[in-house]
């Protein structure tokens, strides 16, 4: 069918991942941080699917499904935490909770 190289798919995944990383590092708003994490997860999934498709194996897609399940669990918890944070500190600044440092 199509014939683009695996590198292009992986480079795309890398770029999206790095954009997510930039977002994670530069945003203060915890909702944006969480979105950046989602971007990174999605990019990782993309890399898996690309790799799986390189050898025509379903394993890459299986991994993506696991990532999906993990993302769903993570988001549900994280959003609940965001609501708690907002209720307690009246702000979405991720650094507001820095008193909880270990």
């Amino acid at each position: 069918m199509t014939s683009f190289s695996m590198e292009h798919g992986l480079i795309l995944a890398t770029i999206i991942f790095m954009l997510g990383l930039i977002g994670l590092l530069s945003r203060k708003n915890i909702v944006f941080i969480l979105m950046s994490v989602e971007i990174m997860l999605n990019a990782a999934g993309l890399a898996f699917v690309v790799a799986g498709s390189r050898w025509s194996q379903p394993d890459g897609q299986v991994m993506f499904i696991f990532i999906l399940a993990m993302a769903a669990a993570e988001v549900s918890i994280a959003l609940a935490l965001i609501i708690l944070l907002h209720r307690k500190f009246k702000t979405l600044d991720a650094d507001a909770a820095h008193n909880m440092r270990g």
Partner: protein
Amino acid sequence: MLELLWMVPALPFLGYIILALFGGRMTKGISAAVGVGMLGLSALITIVIAISFIASPPEGYLFLQTLWKWVDVAGFSPAIALRLDPVSLVFIFIITFVGFLIHLYSVQYMEEEDSTWYARFFAYMNLFVGAMLMLVLADNLLLLYLGWEGVGLCSYLLIGYWYKDPANGAAARKAFIVTRVGDTAMAIGLFILVMAFRTLNIQEILRHVPLVWPVSSQAVVITALMLLGGAVGKSAQLPLQTWLPDAMAGPTPVSALIHAATMVTAGVYLIARMHVIFLQAPEVMTIVGIIGALTLIIAGFSAITQFDIKKVLAYSTISQIGYMFLALGVGAWSAAVFHFMIHAFFKALLFLGAGAVIYALHHEQNMFKMGGVKNMLPLTFWTFVIGSASLAALPLVTGGFYSKDLILYLAFTGEHGSKLLYFAGLFGALITAVYTSRMVFLTFYGHEKTHLHNRPGPVMEVPLIILAVLSTIGGFIELPGTLGHFPLFSNFIQNILPSPGSGEGHEGIGTELMLQIVAAVVAIGGVFIGYLLYYKKPETVQNFKQTPSGQSLYKFWLYGWGFDWVYDTLFVKPIDWIAQVNKSDVIDLIYTAIAWLTRGFNRMFSFTQTGRLRWYAMGIAFGAIVAITIVVFL
């Protein structure tokens, strides 16, 4: 039937596990049923095995049962394997059978304990017997060592059974630590054997030792000395005998078990089992004999002065084990094992009898506060007298006479024997007769000083009767040349242990008869002396005690020839002193420094813990860059 062998040690272990896990929730009846029942079954199986072994002996009088491989490290692979031959058969018979009688006896003796303690007692006892069986049946020295240490552990647990009294705990610790000294020596001996033969299998070692090590070579002497160290520790011989008198802190059945069936005979067993090594090192054989002779005399003198009935018996055990060592030292292996068997019967009988008296007189152990017990407990009295006669080796009718006589005869005539050892043994026999009769007269004769508290029931009396019978007829399976020459036991044992290098023919039957008469006279004389000094004219002894020299001699003997004082001065005090000096522990400073450093690093790193999410993410990203750079470009 021999295939049932594995059940012999397995059943006591099973009993231990049941009692240890569920003992707290059992009634006393169930605990006793489990504890006694397991051992009874074990004894029954042993008898079945013995019958089938004697009826149709396996090839080479050796039956091996490999259960499973224990460990396998670099070619060194000791198995969990059981080994049955005439020697171990005698031992397991004594251990299970006498052990069973002692267990049965304990059912009533320990009835005052509450149910948890009761179950604990039987659990320890079962474990004790199981460990001893493991020791005796082990096919390799590693497994033997396991049983050896198991026995040590159980003796610690049982001596300290009434641990709420600190003195009992101290006695337990003493027993544990003193035997540990010997165990360390034995471990070193095992290391040497592993180094030399790459195996701990007894059979292979015995086969290889004469081929590899020449007679009196340095290696064999050191190995034999190390094994002797272990044996001396466990068997309470000079110079490690000090723990045994203190071990009387435990309940009386425990003492009976330790002295008669288990623990202290382990050393005898070890030397008999490894006799090939000792034969290669005649110097060490001589040492064994000398240790035995010295021990039996020293312990005998100490026994004369004791006022605690159990301590008399304790010293007498040391002394009798001394006889066994003497026998081992002159190469009379079968005589040692024979004496072990007879000793097990009469010593168990004496301890249980003493226990019955103690039980009846409300835990009174001081003989000078007893007296006249003869009329109160006639059955106990008669069985005790039979046991005492056996201990004192009264001629012809007691088992003790035959076994002790065999040792003395072989010491006199044997290839490794010497006249000196013979006379030491003879002197010891005299002392034995004296303190034995002293014990009997003080306890059972005279006017009553206490009143009867409890009356021993049938559970306690049946073992006494059985043991009394055994300690009498036990001697008839080995009759000397003068009395029909019926060496059933020696012949049986000689299948596995070589006979002492003497022929009865060498010295002639006359010598033997003469020696027997001497021994008989000595024994009867001893009893007569005891009768004179402690029944007829006790004031003689009292007067002697009043003199200054008598006073100090009495003290010296009473405290076991001052060994405790010597050890205290030599080892305990210096260590105490060092501990005092080094109160703030120099080595501890190193650990403090480590802790201090760790805390410092912790402080440093805790600066990085800002609590800011993005800071951490930045750390991860930076780490990723570093890691990938390293992987890709280096």
